[in-house]
């Protein structure tokens, strides 16, 4: 009998999958909200001051924060899976995933700074 030389399971697949699904659910719930707002603005139901008031409200800021976190987690997980699918050389894969993580984190921090008016 041939012995299978195989390193076994990494015990980490579930969390990737879990975060991807969870962030998808959050996105499905929250992503329509900005579009409603957009429609309301273009429809004339909300004027500029009204829009600013809505965006400034602490609840909107919290929802906005959750939305952007979910968006980044979802995009990161999705692109990670694609890189794992197609980039087979570990020496390429790990730096690429790392670079992507840095880019997304930077984008996320910048966006959060705008939401909470840090700068």
């Amino acid at each position, binding site marked *: 009998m041939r012995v299978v030389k195989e390193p076994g399971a*990494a015990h980490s*697949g579930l969390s*990737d999958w879990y975060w991807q699904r969870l962030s998808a659910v959050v996105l499905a719930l929250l992503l329509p909200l900005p579009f409603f707002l957009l429609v309301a603005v273009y429809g004339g139901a909300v004027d500029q001051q009204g829009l600013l008031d809505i965006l400034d409200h602490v609840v909107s800021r919290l929802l906005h924060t959750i939305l952007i976190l979910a968006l980044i987690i979802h995009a990161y997980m999705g692109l990670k899976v694609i890189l*794992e699918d197609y980039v087979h050389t570990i020496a390429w894969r790990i730096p690429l995933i790392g670079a992507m993580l840095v880019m997304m984190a930077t984008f996320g921090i910048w966006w959060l700074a705008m939401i909470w008016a840090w700068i």
Partner: protein
Amino acid sequence: MAEIIKLSVFRFDPEKDDKPFMQTYEVPLLKSGMKLLDALNYIKWEIDGTLTYRRSCGEGVCGSDGLNINGVNGLACITPIEGLKQPIHVRPLPSMHVIRDLVVDMDHFFDQYRQIKPWLQSESPMPEHERLQSPEDRERLDGSYECILCGCCTTSCPSWWWNGDRFLGPAALLQANRWIVDSRDEATGERLDQLEDAFRLYRCHQIMNCMEACPKELNPTAAIGHIRRKLLSRKS
């Protein structure tokens, strides 16, 4: 004169040929309800004895004649000639290393099957007679035990094409689930441990090619979903 069937068959003999090529054959329609395997047999026995392929039972039980037929994986022995567009393109299972003509190397496929430990694991002492199972528990094995390990599903899975070295593929995962749902097996925990991996299990992207390819009409995608739910409920 009998009706003629046109076939275009993948040929490759690594000892003689530099490159694979498609060879055309014409075979008479021998009987109504004739299967593709009958045509291959006719070629081998009457026209060209060098054509090489695997087959044994001739009735969809042994799983040895999985082929790519007009672009779709299936068993030659139960695929009727009728309804196939001609010339019928017959190729080996996709993404597999060809040993000769339609014969592919299945070693890795069966290695992966062995990795899921496809046997009953139990700690409790051997009962005096057989290990009993209620009819309901037995019913939970329906849809899994029928698998004949033909490889049609696994070799049609794009995820397995890209990452077959690590992703176990639909056939092995269907069988992994078969042992997870078996009421007599007591190694569910270890089985789940061995599957929780971004590649071994989660490389399945639910493309469902496997389900469409399966000549036994089994549903590996659903089995993979069941394993995922098991893992999720264990952790949440």
